[in-house]
């Protein structure tokens, strides 16, 4: 007898039937679906066969993409065959050509760089000049040279969320009349249910870049999203993803739930207090796109810690952790403290 195997609509892993919940559950991303739901979702799913043009594009990608490997940190860097990668932009050690990429790593979409390197360097300089306690060589020309134009692999997810919210809200008002103080409390049953659609929540598929750093330079303007072409890679580097859809799904789920929660909470009026009994945001279906997004990236190693800095190559939004020269800060604070003590000592009569 053939057993029907259903794939998780969110992460594509095999679903298993859970006798307790009577639902099909994904052990990997923890999604769960009723039989009816999964049958409907599978019926809606496209089972398209790649057309000839798509096959050609995949072959072109495989032929013209070189993969470089950093033996120091393990990063895989890809660039087109007209460009040679010399160093790893994470750890700044030399990289070696390790071969070609297979077609599965070919992105669906790409957003091209709108900021050139000079603009990125200017933005970095403006950002860093406000921070006087960074190490001196963090601002050096040598360091500025390390700012690298990089296409970061992103999984962008469109999620359909079932929201279920149930709470008791209280509205309290009080007033005084005569010798008495009155407090009126009204309790409301607050119910919100519905479907919330989030589109294009991105999660980078590169484990070496801090996820929060990439989230902080969002959002990208998807209206400029184009079909991937090798020509976009010219002059820039690109990462090969090392975290697949299933790997990024927990992050996607968290962020989609946050977005859903915001919609629901925004729809609730002003209550004095809200006692929530049910608040669930279940992702029923996820559509994925694999895309390359432009990022100006720089890493800096200081006292055995790597500090990363990134600029959205499309919008110019900037994020990063500035390294702190603690010795410089301590000396400055000490000088400040001593200076204030001396001034106050003189003014306050500590010397005369």
């Amino acid at each position, binding site marked *: 007898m053939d057993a029907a195997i259903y794939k998780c609509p969110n992460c594509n892993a095999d679903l298993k039937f859970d006798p307790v919940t009577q639902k099909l559950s994904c052990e990997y991303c923890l999604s769960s679906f009723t039989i009816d739901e999964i049958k409907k979702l599978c019926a809606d799913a496209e089972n398209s066969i790649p057309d000839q043009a798509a096959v050609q594009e995949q072959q072109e990608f495989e032929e013209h993409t070189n993969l470089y490997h950093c033996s120091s940190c393990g990063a895989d860097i890809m660039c087109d065959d007209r460009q040679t990668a010399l160093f790893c932009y994470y750890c700044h050690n030399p990289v070696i050509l390790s071969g070609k990429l297979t077609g599965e790593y070919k992105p669906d979409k790409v957003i091209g760089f709108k900021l050139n390197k000079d603009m990125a360097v200017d933005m970095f300089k403006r950002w860093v000049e406000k921070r006087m306690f960074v190490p001196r060589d963090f601002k050096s020309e040598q360091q500025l040279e390390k700012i690298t134009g990089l296409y970061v692999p992103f999984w962008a997810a469109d999620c359909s969320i079932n929201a279920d919210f149930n709470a008791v809200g209280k509205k309290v008002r009080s007033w005084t009349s005569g010798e008495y103080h009155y*407090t009126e409390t009204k309790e409301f049953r607050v119910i*919100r249910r519905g479907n919330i659609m989030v589109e294009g929540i991105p999660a980078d598929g590169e484990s070496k870049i801090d996820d929060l750093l990439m989230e902080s330079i969002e959002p990208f303007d998807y209206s400029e999203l184009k079909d991937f072409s090798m020509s976009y890679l010219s002059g820039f580097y690109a990462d090969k993803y090392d975290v697949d859809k299933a790997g990024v799904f927990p992050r996607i789920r968290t962020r989609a739930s946050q977005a859903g929660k915001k919609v629901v909470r925004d729809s609730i009026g002003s209550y004095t207090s809200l006692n929530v009994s049910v608040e669930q945001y279940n992702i029923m279906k996820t559509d994925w796109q694999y895309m390359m997004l432009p990022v100006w990236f720089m890493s800096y190693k200081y006292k055995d810690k790597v500090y990363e800095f990134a600029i959205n190559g499309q919008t110019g939004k900037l994020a990063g952790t500035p390294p702190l020269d603690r010795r410089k800060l301590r000396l400055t604070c000490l000088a400040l*403290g001593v200076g204030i003590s001396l001034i106050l000592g003189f003014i306050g009569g500590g010397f005369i």
Partner: protein
Amino acid sequence: MRRSGNVLLTIVLAIVALAGVLTLDTIIVNAFTTENLSAGYDGRSELSGLVDERGVFKEEPDTYASLQKRIRQCSENTELNILIFIAGDEHWGCSEAEIERYNDDLYDETFGEYTDGVGYYMDLSGQSPAHDDISVSGKAAVIIEEEQANGIFSALDHYLPKSGAGYGTGDIRDAVEVFCDKLESYHSEYKPSNYKYFHDKEAKTPVYVFVKDGETYVTTGRAPGSKFKRLLIAELIGTIVGLVTYIVTRKKYKFKNTANPSVYVAREKSALTERSDVLIRSYVTKHKISSSSGGSRGGFGGGGGHGGSHGHFGHSR
């Protein structure tokens, strides 16, 4: 293990830093010590006495002589110069400031500047209100402070006439004797502590009077204890400012996540199919407002001004 080692090191460093600061403060305080102007008490009690401008005891020379004797005895007992001036008609209409300046000048002319002593100006000029004044110099400034001065004025009020009223020589004699008694009493109660000091900030030449190791100092600079305390407060504020700057700056060097996933919501494709806020219960509670009564507190204050390196306590009758 390493963390506890760091904590221990921090504590040791803090203790060393504190010890260093205290040592430095001691050095600073000693380095900036100013000259001691105190002329002390030279033991010449014969200079002390009663100046009777009003002529109260003109007809009673024996009483006058006995009071002179009493005052000189008090001077020896207290090791303070004492001058009691009974103002007559010449000083009718003098303002408080003029009285204080006269009292200071008379004292300084009689005993010299920065000596240990007290000048009492007894206003019998007949003006209304009458204004008495106590001028303290040197060690007397730390023996007679506001509380003691008020004690003296209060005690003498029993004997001295009200403004414009007449007086009897017996009352004035008693007042002088009570003054001496009170002075001896305050002197015997007085326990010179190391850094008891009096700051005469309204004087022409402001001085600080303090007693250190039993010796009276009159200096243009503060007492070492006061300077030490002020330095410590300044250092504490400096330390707090330095620490706050350090903590705030460190926070600025932390990563800040500015992501906002709600920008990905497709509003046009999202819909809340069930959206209800149903009233399920309503109730009103009331409580009686308890009445409370409040009181008011009064305050009082006082002050005075003068023209010399003396402390002053004024009193109107």
